[in-house]
């Protein structure tokens, strides 16, 4: 297995692990903001993380018995 493959797998694993905890992909969000809402400020990962952490437990909490 060559290096780009390993990197892709690593990125996939990190993305899955974060999403399991309710944290969406930061890069995707930043890209979305730049494309569709260039006027809005781009939050740092720290700000993004804090906002999402609180948002996760507002709805049904996204978990089962």
């Amino acid at each position, binding site marked *: 297995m060559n290096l780009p493959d390993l990197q892709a797998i690593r990125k996939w694993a990190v993305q899955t692990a974060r999403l399991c*905890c309710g*944290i969406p992909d930061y890069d995707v969000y930043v890209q979305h903001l730049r494309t569709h809402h260039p006027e809005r400020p781009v939050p740092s*990962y720290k700000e993004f993380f804090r906002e999402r952490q609180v948002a996760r437990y507002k*709805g049904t909490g*996204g978990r*089962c018995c």
Partner: protein
Amino acid sequence: MSTVAVKPSPAGKILWAAIAIVGAWCLGVVALRRGEPINAIWLVAAAIAVFVIGYRFYGKFINDRVLQMDPTRATPAVLRNDGLDYVPTDKWVVFGHHFAAIAGAGPLVGPVLAAQMGYLPGTLWILFGVVFAGAVQDFMILGLSVRRDGRSLGNMLRDELGPVAGIVAMFGVLVLMMIVLAVLALVVVKALTHSPWGTYTVACTIPIALLMGVYLRWIRPGKILEVSIIGLILLLLSIWSGAAVAASPTLAPIFDFDAKSLAWLLIAYGFCASVLPVWLLLAPRDYLSTFLKIGTILLLALAIFLAAPTLQMPAVTKFIDGTGPVFQGNLFPFLFITIACGAVSGWHSIIASGTTPKLIASEGEARMIGYGGMLMEAFVAIMALVAAASLHPGVYFAMNSPSALIGTTAQDAATAISQWGFVVTPDELLTTAQNIGEKTILSRAGGAPTLAVGMAQLLHGIIPGEGMMAFWYHYAILFEALFILTTVDAGTRVGRFMIQEIAGLVHKPLQHTESWTGNLLATAICVGLWGYFLYQGAVDPLGGINTLWPLFGIANQMLAAVALMLATVVTVKLKRERYVLVPGIPAIWLVICTLTAGWQKLSGPISFTAAAQKYAQAAADGKLLAPAKSVEEMQRIVTNNYVDAALTGIFMLLILTMLGFALNAILKAWRINHPTAHEEPYVALGSVPTR
């Protein structure tokens, strides 16, 4: 996995025929071989074959014909992409997310309790229940939600069955949640009663989580994986040091509690944890429990494959006649109530209409995530069943029978259980307790401890070593307690929001989730509701699980029936009447099971009413029945049983009301000759600009 209809190649046909033959052979061995114990691998192989065939054929049938999922159609993730909640995401990432959200303690507890009837009834219900009911529910609700902007179950019920049906269902969800929280908290109480080692390690999770919270907030913000690894190391250290605590004459009594005190501690904990900021306690523990859960499931799978244990429990025990000590009631309907998660779980319909539908990039991926995700959960349930059935049946019954039936000493328990036909010596019970580092294993119902002993034995078989059994046992207890406590904490918050929403109808300011008055009041009500049932379970004559688990099962299957009714209504509304039986049959089956079980819990020998009358009669005669030690306690048991009976009645009424709404909607839609479902209009995937 192609979603385009391709004619199967000859090689493909041969492959599927081979899988079918191997699966049928394994299933035949599991079902028909009597008298000699079989190896768990037969059961696991049969399960894999059934799941693969179910996914390939029935899942695809639902995908192509019933839901008519269309890969060219834009999904909510594409249409409403906001980079946060609605994001088109890689299907494997969504699968991981969805599985982590649906897999909880449920599939590990139900099958363990159901093992009292032998491994066969539970296995068959899990295998065929999941293919024809559970996975159908998850997949169809996911499919419906994807076609409706990712709307929630409650919203979809409101749209398709009418506003009143939506409110009735949401009320049902709130009550179900209180029962779920109570019964799960009771599992923890049962596991930790007079277990200083277990209580110490679980208590350690609180400072560990606080430390992780602070670390994530200020030291290394957002580094979830890093902090989880630190947390895991600290957890393992707490298990390791727990042995010393349990052995110490000064420290052990500090962590030695009876069931009542543990119930109060959990109630107090639930209140505090759910009013603290999420980043401090809830979120970090959530991360830890999510990773630990996935890791432990993988570990369990590895252990079963490597250890390949022999199933010591008979295929079918005499307790299918309803006289079992773990839960009362006949195979029908109580097996189908006891194993909820793993075969079919109503709670999943909330997840399948929650975050998951907002992440799916293409409708062609919904089958893998919805149907496939549920098959994975059923596999977890099968593994839990294997772990329980590979225990010595005598040990299994000693752990899961209430002390009212087997007494409180190893001597009494061994005598009672041997009389049931599962010969066991007091020595065997004592040795098991000693091996796992506990004083006693008697009457620890609730699944977690049984699974822990099963897992400990499997893992010990692979990695032997002095004292390792005790380590693995407390690891398994900790892992279950950790995610149950997270559920209790998160669930209390959700319950609080629901209560605040209802209270807001009466007095508007109470609705503000930022307000401390409304917040504390709603939290107190929420904790009070589940706390009542938890405490009731802790003082219950039959040990609590025996009483509360059927109530939980009825409620969970009730919600599943409601979700499947919604799927049935929509199928008719889309004018696909010829497929109405796909969601219709499991819906009817669950209605029959819940109503029958409800009725038997309402009147008859195993009912709550009968138990209440028995205690009321004894109290009137001036007698005291165990475990009550005073007239007041006798009275409390009477009241508790009447409350449970009333709740059962409410559940039955609720399901009949929903059935009425569903039938009404079906009849109306059947008469109209054009589709009337509230689907969002078709938008071609190609016409949406990519981000």
